[in-house]
């Protein structure tokens, strides 16, 4: 048998690793909620599993997403992960080939050079030897990049590198040592028995026979021992992301979705974070307000080590920029929402009056402004104007205010009240017979879409206006105005509505591009989700965003969310307008020359 005592640390470490991972996975899987379990069972034996394997290959090994975001960083991850993976696979084949059986000793592949001393020198062996050396070289190059990244992260295009915990440091040190030790150990064998290729053989030539003899065994012991250290620290360090992400990819492909409650899926998510730190650079709290300890990477890390405090959980704008940037696709804001402390006050039921809000007339279309829009009455006036220009009959559901979509309450943890409200609103809506619900506030829109089960169409007013234009129900005057459109977080990243507002605005003026738009769009700073930072800090975030957005000195800064509008108007001396307001000002009214004249004057005054 191919045996030497130095394999003991490796075997012990590998077994422990396996046991711990199985234990952890079993625990998390049992914590999946009912719906998630159902999907796992239903899709386990389906094509979805094959798709998952494909994705594991692309994301966990090749790291395609990181590569797309940052090629050099992507290469680093790929060379380490995929390179190591191939080392194992090719090593295994090489060992089986050598042993003439698939069931050779499991450690043979790991310490192959040591045991395969009298290997015949024919082309297959040479080929393997060459391939293994090449792979080792690739891994080592990735390692070199990793070391540079630690020392000087700017070279790799990362502004802020993640601060690590002690397990990470142990695992990292072990990881850094594994491959150089392997290289030296194999080189010493190659020096003695000439079984190396260009790399190990080349280095082996530098060793004297005497030296090689002296260091060979100690080097294999060291190599085996760092493997042990790496394996046992792995489940407690960030490297746990390697096995976790694999399962996560399967769970996602099977259709498991994160809900409002923290679940086993969330466990897989937080363990799949590689602490790459990409989310830090995406966060405005970092680059606008110099707050560098609350970003998703730290939030997730603290959650994992059960050290999360409210200060970190609540210090977030919930803008979703990190979610968009995360190469693992973690649902970062959702997890944060799951873990935020909810109020414990039971509260009363205040919504009896909803029943009295009677809409006697049947209607096809409902307009819902929302509480935020009530604070920007110009948007409501504009919408009324547009409805009348398009000769559309509608029911203004919250005209006398008081109706809420229920989302703020839900986020505070008043789940029951929110449900009551939702069911009352649902009744009101279905009684009206409406087929279309138009919202001015993206937050309400999202709430109607995700928390209600309405079987009518829901639109944001920007989509609706787009439709009115397409159907020729309204016509717009074209002008020379330069317009910058700011994508609101909830409308853009939240609901994926990027095109309709731009299509509408391009009918009125020229849309000027900005540095951050669509998926990359900034938070206006008006977010109500951060309950930790001072208003001053929030204003700093707003001012930076404003500075970037208005660099081109546009005639109008356009947006499509009452909250964004409010937060920008307070600081910007130029024009800030909601898309509805702009459209209303540029409505082309036929058969009424007098009104038309006034319109032209108004347009002139905007231009001024």
């Amino acid at each position, binding site marked *: 048998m191919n045996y030497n005592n130095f394999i003991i640390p490796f075997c012990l470490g590998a077994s422990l690793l396996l046991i711990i991972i199985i234990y952890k996975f079993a625990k998390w899987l049992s914590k999946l909620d009912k719906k998630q379990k159902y999907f796992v069972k239903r899709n386990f034996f389906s094509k979805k599993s094959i798709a998952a394997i494909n994705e594991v290959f692309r994301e966990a090994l090749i790291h395609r997403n990181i590569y797309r975001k940052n090629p050099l960083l992507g290469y680093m991850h790929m060379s380490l992960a995929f390179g190591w993976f191939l080392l194992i696979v090719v090593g295994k084949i090489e060992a089986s080939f050598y042993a003439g059986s698939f069931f050779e000793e499991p450690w043979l592949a790991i310490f192959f050079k040591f045991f395969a001393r009298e290997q015949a020198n024919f082309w297959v062996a040479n080929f393997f030897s060459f391939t293994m050396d090449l792979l080792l070289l690739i891994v080592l190059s990735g390692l070199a990049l990793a070391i540079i990244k630690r020392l000087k992260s700017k070279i790799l295009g990362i502004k802020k590198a993640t601060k690590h915990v002690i397990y990470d440091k142990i695992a990292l040190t072990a990881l850094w040592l594994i491959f150089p030790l392997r290289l030296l150990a194999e080189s010493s064998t190659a020096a003695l028995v000439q079984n190396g290729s260009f790399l190990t053989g080349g280095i082996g030539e530098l060793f004297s026979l005497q030296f090689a003899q002296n260091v060979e065994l100690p080097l294999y012991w060291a190599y085996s021992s760092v493997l042990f250290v790496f394996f046992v620290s792995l489940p407690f360090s960030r490297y746990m992301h390697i096995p976790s992400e694999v399962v996560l990819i399967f769970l996602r492909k099977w259709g498991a979705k994160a809900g409002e409650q923290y679940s086993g899926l969330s466990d897989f998510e937080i363990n799949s974070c590689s602490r790459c730190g990409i989310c830090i650079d995406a966060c405005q709290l970092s680059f606008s307000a110099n707050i560098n300890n609350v970003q998703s990477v730290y939030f997730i890390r603290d959650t994992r080590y059960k050290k999360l405090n409210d200060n970190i959980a609540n210090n977030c704008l919930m803008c979703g920029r990190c979610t968009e940037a995360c190469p693992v696709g973690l649902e970062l804001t959702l997890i944060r929402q799951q873990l935020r402390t909810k109020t414990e006050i039971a509260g009363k039921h205040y919504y009896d009056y909803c029943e009295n809000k009677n809409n006697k007339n049947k209607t096809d279309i409902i307009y819902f402004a929302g509480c935020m829009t*009530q*604070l*920007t*009455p*110009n948007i409501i*006036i504009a919408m009324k104007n547009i409805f009348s220009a398009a000769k559309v009959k509608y029911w203004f559901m919250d005209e006398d*205010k008081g109706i809420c979509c229920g989302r703020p309450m839900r986020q505070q943890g008043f789940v029951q009240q929110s449900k009551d409200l939702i069911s009352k609103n649902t009744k009101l809506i279905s009684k009206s017979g409406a087929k279309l619900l138009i919202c001015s506030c993206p937050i309400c829109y999202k709430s109607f879409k995700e928390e209600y089960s309405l079987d009518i169409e829901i639109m944001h007013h920007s989509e609706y206006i787009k439709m009115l234009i397409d159907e020729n129900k309204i016509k717009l005057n074209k002008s020379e105005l330069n317009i910058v459109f700011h994508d609101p977080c909830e409308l853009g990243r939240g609901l994926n509505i990027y095109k309709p507002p731009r299509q509408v605005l391009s009918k009125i003026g020229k849309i000027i591009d900005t540095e951050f738009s669509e998926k990359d769009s900034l938070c206006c700073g008006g977010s109500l989700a951060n309950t930790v930072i001072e*208003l*001053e800090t929030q*204003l700093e975030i707003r001012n930076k965003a404003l500075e970037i957005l208005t660099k081109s000195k546009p005639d109008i800064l356009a947006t499509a969310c009452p909250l964004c*509008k*409010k937060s920008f*108007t*307070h*600081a910007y001396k130029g024009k800030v307008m909601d898309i509805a307001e702009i459209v209303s000002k540029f409505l082309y009214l036929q058969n009424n020359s007098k009104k038309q004249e006034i319109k032209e004057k108004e347009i002139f005054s905007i231009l001024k």
Partner: protein
Amino acid sequence: MKNKSVIIIGAGVAGIEAANNIAENGYNVTLIEKENLLGGNLKNYAKLFPDFYEAGEVKNNLINKLNSENINVYNNNEITELFFENNKWQAVNSQNQKFLADAALLTTGFTVFDAKRKEELGYGIYDNVITSLEFENMYKTGKITTKQGNIPERIAFLNCVGSRDEKVGNHYCSRVCCINAVKQASEFKEIYPDSQAYCFYMDMRMAGQFYEELYRKSQEKHNVIYIRGRISEAAATLDNKIQIKSEDTLSGLPLKMTVDLLVLMVGIEASIGTNQLASQNEINGEYGFAKSKGLYGNDNITNKKGLFLAGTCKRPLTIPETIADAKAAANQIIKYLNQI
């Protein structure tokens, strides 16, 4: 000595007062005003707090003294650039015409906060939401009515619009609007004793001589009701009244009421001229106001030799304070001109 000269930019209270003082001492003054009429913001007021003195009289007294032969007044002249070159202070107007002098005095004053920036208050959207300046104007014409021409049965004044408001970036107190609200509420009640007047405030800042007395009188004699709380939103009802939402922070209860007229006590902001000319000369301070060299004895001089400041281009001030400050500035300028 007699040939030495000074340019004064802005013919409001501070500018006119300083011009008169300097001219009396035999120096040449070039007084430049961007508007057609002289008097600056004083023109916008009917009566002054706390003694209901006629604003027009104050203004006329100031302007009447201007006919000294040492003073040249240029109205309709907007200065866009001010700099020191070839040993002279040079002011350039929008037509590129230059004015030269040995010293320059900035009296570019303030403008009021644009209430449209607080959309939730409905100014510029609903007819019957007006600013304190529009109230003054109505008072001047003797007709305080709603847009529809009715006598307001209920009127509300809202303090601190655009002042002490982090969100609009103005942390400071404008100092004059509290007492102005007391004055306007009293004036309103003098005309319409049967109507009701409310005033929403954060604190009532009555720190001037006779302010407290006026405040007390407005409650005892006129029954003006003071409610501690900001108005969070205003909306028009079908009959053009204004429905306001607030919180009575003393009782801790939310509050909703309907009034016929809502008056926004708009705060003081640095004028565009102040902002522009101060930054050109690197004497721009907080919130766009101009910065003097120091508060204690150096409040009229700046870090630029020969450039002086007076009045509300530095910070919110009352009219008596502005007059005193202008006299002090004149004194400093005369000293300076004597030396060079």
